[in-house]
């Protein structure tokens, strides 16, 4: 199995600071082979320190892949960090956020400038966007931005959260968006709806660990009324395809 959405380090919540080793233990418990991860510290507080710590984490563990967090409040710093970390072997893409932590939407000028750099220099990179604000502007903004950068692959983290029924038809219109299933409420029919609207080849597993455990999200997949073939695509094969595209792009193939 592959988890395309997890975090290490500390959130401002009553949870211990999570190390890469904690994450690997959780992966072993749940049979997850590879997890793509960003730094919570980078998102909620200090991008430079958090991204640097993440780089040390993924360099130590070959089952982890990294997303560099790009904070739009400083385009120059974000570009510098994107260039630095996407040049490292185990970084596969960029994490972007809207809402309270950064105070601006994905479609803001600063995000677009950063994405322009990614598209020009790292067109193979994945862009994991926090699509979980329970605000139609949040997923509509992702669809708009994905249309501007058709060469990039976007992952809609949380696929609209509570508004998934509204979000999925909008997200499905852009071929370069896949839906990532993690959500704070394990709402029935989310996965069935994603498979029906996006197509099973455009739905991927994510947990949002450590906020949500991999076991909690695997429970959703277990109960979803979709076929075993589709579950295999969600849990592993679709993500493997995305990671293979990253590797091929990085190798210049």
């Amino acid at each position, binding site marked *: 199995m592959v988890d395309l959405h997890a975090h290490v380090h500390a959130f401002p919540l009553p949870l211990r600071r999570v190390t890469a080793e904690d994450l690997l233990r959780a992966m072993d418990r749940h049979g997850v082979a590879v997890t793509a991860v960003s730094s919570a510290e980078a998102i909620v507080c200090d991008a430079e320190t958090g991204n640097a710590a993440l780089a040390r984490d993924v360099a130590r563990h070959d089952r982890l892949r990294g997303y560099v967090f790009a904070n739009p409040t400083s385009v120059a710093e974000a570009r510098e960090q994107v260039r630095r970390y996407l040049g490292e072997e185990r970084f596969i893409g960029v994490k972007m956020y809207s809402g309270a932590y950064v105070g601006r939407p994905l479609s803001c000028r600063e995000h677009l400038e950063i994405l322009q750099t990614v598209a020009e220099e790292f067109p193979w990179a994945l862009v994991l966007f926090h699509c979980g604000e329970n605000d139609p502007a949040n997923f509509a903004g992702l669809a708009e931005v994905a249309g501007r950068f058709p060469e990039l692959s976007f992952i809609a983290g949380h696929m609209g959260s509570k508004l998934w029924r509204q979000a999925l038809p909008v997200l499905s219109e852009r071929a370069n968006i896949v839906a990532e299933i993690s959500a704070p409420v394990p709402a029935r029919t989310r996965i069935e709806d994603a498979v029906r609207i996006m197509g099973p080849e455009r739905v991927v597993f994510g947990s949002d*660990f450590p*906020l*949500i455990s991999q076991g909690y999200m695997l*429970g959703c997949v*277990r*109960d979803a009324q979709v076929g075993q073939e589709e579950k295999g695509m969600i849990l592993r094969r679709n993500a493997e395809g995305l990671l293979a595209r990253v590797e091929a792009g990085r190798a210049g193939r």
Partner: protein
Amino acid sequence: MLEPEAVLDCNCLFGHWPRGELDASLATVLGLLGAAGIGGVVVGSLRAALSDSAAGNQEAMAACAGRPGLEPCAGLSLRRAMDHEGEVEAVWGAGCRLLRVFREYEGWPVDYAPFARTVRAAAGRGLPVMVAALAPGDITAMGRALAESAGALVVTGVNISHTPLVAEAIAVGRDAPQMYFETSRVENEETMELLAGELGVGRLVFGTGLPFQYPSSALAVLRECGLSREEKTAVLGGNARRLMGLTIGG
């Protein structure tokens, strides 16, 4: 893990869901519970939540009649009810041992006189009341309502990732020993262990959130967390049975 008969889901509804986006029929709900390995359920009617509490409660009791492992959960509309004491007597007399109120559908705040009156009436019968925490401050207000009544509340909705309520639940729960927390929205093992450690295992009761939530998620967290087998047994059914005075399963 425990035998299905030992697991008791205390957060489950069935019936007609008017938005039409999911099948909430009793057959579907029981099928999902069975597939997840959950053999006991305290189940209420969506009709009681959305329309006619009395008719819905009759529907829940009829659904449970003759089905081992099923116990009825009564529902009460606090937008409609005026004789709260009489309503409590009616559901107690009918054999229901859990009363659920529906602020998630009806929109009333915790600081709401009909809620306080219902909690007081239920306390007189030893009938626990299930109520949803929806936003920061809700559990704090529930603690005040409980302090005035000596009743028991079962609070749903405690989570850490969406509307973080865990720190508030612990702060209030330490001073409110009759406040219990239902676990279907506890999304990770560390939080389960934290709640058990800070409040005591006896304060946690298992639920699934059916028909709106996938049931295996909540079960997975309890299965994988660091509580002992005896502690898991208590959360998965023993605590709720003791609280409600039930004899099914276990």
